[in-house]
């Protein structure tokens, strides 16, 4: 498509830069790396979130303090600073052989994964803690008084309710993670935003490149959101989620 100018400003559109060699595979490669780094970081973030979110609710003070320190320290500093720290700073503290090994085995990627998962793990554990704490104590008491053991009550009542309650906030947080993975470009990971920037640098066609990147992100986020919306509705607990849903819209 060739058009001259938009809003009265002379500009020659050349959308073909997105699919002609040598830039034809850049967007796809970038998308693949975005998905890969997001997925790996998401797994680590959820594991950290479950661990520290649960630790923040245990009735043992020192463990709670450790979990609180982790959460408050990591989520209150910008992710970008953490990425720079993990990529430029932290390897300084490692012994030389390990550092050399890392440099030869894709250090950017794993430093990016470390930064994103530790930061989002802290945020995820807040979500999970809130989920656990939002279940009234009476649920536990009711389970116990109907003859279930503590582990049965947890397994059959508390955890199923908690999992369903945290679906919306965890979805939200996961989408944040996906969007935040774009910051990995700053430490040289060739993910989607990096790819759009690279196309722009090589072809000087910023409008086309940014449009493509924006639409891909938008499609990703909206499709995940709509899938999770369906999941949420399917697993909704009638009395509880319905109220939250009305407040939402």
């Amino acid at each position, binding site marked *: 498509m060739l058009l001259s100018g938009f*809003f009265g*400003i002379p*500009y020659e559109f050349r959308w073909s830069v997105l699919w002609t060699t040598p830039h034809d595979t850049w967007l796809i490669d970038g998308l693949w790396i975005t998905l890969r780094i997001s997925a790996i970081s998401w797994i680590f973030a959820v594991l950290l979130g479950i661990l520290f979110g649960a630790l923040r609710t245990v009735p043992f003070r020192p463990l709670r303090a450790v979990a609180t320190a982790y959460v*408050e*320290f990591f989520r*209150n*500093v*910008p*992710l*970008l*600073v*953490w990425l*720079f*720290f993990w990529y*430029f*700073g*932290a390897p*300084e*503290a490692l*012994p030389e052989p390990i550092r050399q090994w890392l440099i030869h085995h894709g250090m950017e990627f794993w430093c990016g994964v470390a930064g994103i998962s530790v930061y989002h793990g802290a945020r995820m554990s807040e979500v999970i803690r809130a989920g656990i704490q939002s279940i009234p104590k009476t649920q536990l008491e009711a389970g116990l008084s109907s003859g279930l053991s503590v582990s049965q009550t947890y397994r059959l009542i508390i955890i199923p309710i908690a999992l369903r309650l945290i679906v919306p906030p965890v979805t939200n947080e996961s989408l944040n993670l996906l*969007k*935040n993975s*774009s*910051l990995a*470009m*700053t430490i040289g990971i060739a993910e989607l*935003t990096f790819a*759009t*920037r690279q196309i*722009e640098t090589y072809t000087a066609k*910023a*409008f086309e490149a*940014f449009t493509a*990147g*924006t639409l891909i*992100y*938008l499609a990703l*986020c*909206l499709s995940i*959101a709509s899938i999770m919306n369906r999941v949420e509705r399917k697993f909704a607990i009638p009395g509880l989620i319905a109220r939250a849903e009305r*407040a*939402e819209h």
Partner: protein
Amino acid sequence: MNFDFAVVISNAKFLLLQGLLGIGIFAGGTLRLAIPAIFGGFCIGVVLGLSRLAQRPLIHYPAAVYIEFIRGIPLVMVIFWFWFLIPVFLRRPVPEYWVALMAFICFEGAYIGEIVRAGIQSVPRGQVDAATATGLGYLQTMWSVVLPQAIRNMIPSLVTQFIVLFKDTSLASIIGMMDLTKAAQTVTARELRPFEMYIFIAVVYWIFTYSMSRFSRWLEIRMSPEQAPSS
């Protein structure tokens, strides 16, 4: 492996004055960007939030599309868009500070719009009915019944949003604006002490965000009529 935190002390003046406050030869500064951005974002957010609640589709849909669009793309993308588009529209080079400020206002506007909407919707319907029953008009109902309660509900979320914005301003360093992160990068390029430098700015960011989050928690307890956090 041997750390030298003296490098932090000798560069603290540049980092804090130039990077954090924006006093110096570069236009920039984390706080100088974050504070106008939250006010600008609030203005746009109120308009968007009210528009999204409007009955007329012509007002409702543009606001909804704008909010969903902005919320569906990463902030870096928005900053790049502004970085590219604003000089094209104004037909002259624009300093990074103004590019970043406009990008942040438009980006935060979408998120604050959702906060405003939720705040207004959190006021029970019965309040409006009661106000109407006592003979108040639309504007009177909004001004003296709905908005006071809505704003009270919104304030904790707004403080939280400001914390998020404060952290997000570090992204302005990507287009070269001299904020705290960029200042640390600049110093690191000269001193070659990344570990000490990034730990230091992490602590500076942390002090600000953590004290704001404590303030927000205090505010939430303070402002609830029952003097206790609402369940």
